[in-house]
């Protein structure tokens, strides 16, 4: 598959992590893909895992809830939107696999030029333990690995 472009910075001993990624698309499209439920559902579910958007109100004071099946069990990710702006989305987030460990998710979209955008996602946790639990959630709950997703995508193409 293509080279890894996503950067993750999770410094040991810190309660936060940064995910950054560049996209070959104008800022307004990258924002729209985050704010429009029909578009969001097409990519957030890891390109192969079925995701059910039970709630999706991308506006200040709105709430969201997605159900995802991981390792044969249903898990939900839910929270509230604090701010939805074309250059910034701020929301709370809690994963049902780790109850009572809500985090703050601050995602910004920066214009690199007319057709390139930099996405930065800053996740701030209540404790170091919460941060580490989130990073290992994929391993612990058996979420789909990238090569499995590739297989699924290849199957779809055929």
């Amino acid at each position, binding site marked *: 598959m293509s080279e890894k472009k*996503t950067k993750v910075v*999770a410094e040991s001993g810190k309660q936060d992590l940064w995910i950054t990624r560049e996209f070959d698309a104008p800022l307004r499209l990258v924002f729209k893909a985050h704010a429009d439920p029909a578009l969001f559902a097409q*990519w957030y579910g890891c*390109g192969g895992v079925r995701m059910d958007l039970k709630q999706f109100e991308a506006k200040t004071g709105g709430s969201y809830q997605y159900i995802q099946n991981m390792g044969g069990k249903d898990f939900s990710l839910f929270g509230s939107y604090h701010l939805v702006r074309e250059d910034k989305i701020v929301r709370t987030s809690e994963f049902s696999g780790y109850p009572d460990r809500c985090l703050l998710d601050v995602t910004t979209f920066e214009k690199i030029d007319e057709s390139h955008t930099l996405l930065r996602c800053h996740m701030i946790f209540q404790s170091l333990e919460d941060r580490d639990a989130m*990073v*290992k959630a994929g391993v612990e709950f058996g979420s789909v690995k990238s090569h499995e997703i590739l297989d699924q995508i290849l199957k779809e193409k055929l």
Partner: protein
Amino acid sequence: MVVNSLNRTFAALSDPTRRKIVTLLKERPATIHELTVPFSVSQQAISKHVVYLEKADLVEKKKVGREQYCQLKPEGLRLVSDWTEDFRDSWESRYQALDRVLEKMKKE
């Protein structure tokens, strides 16, 4: 159990002095005395940190002649970085799906 040892590794690396010790040992093995030089704490304090790192399976001690050297156990660190790799992989997959959605959007 994999999960417990990850917790131990992260607890070990959650202290800035221990992180600095690991960074120094990445360059080359060192004695406790050598490790104490960059810090303003006692040799005893550094020794305690090293014991913590040994218990977390990140560092081991080896005798060379009359000196005892601390060195990194490569497997310990690889566990930590593999784990962040999985996390990054899953986000990269998600963002590659977003790449495809953005391509479709551009055509509209």
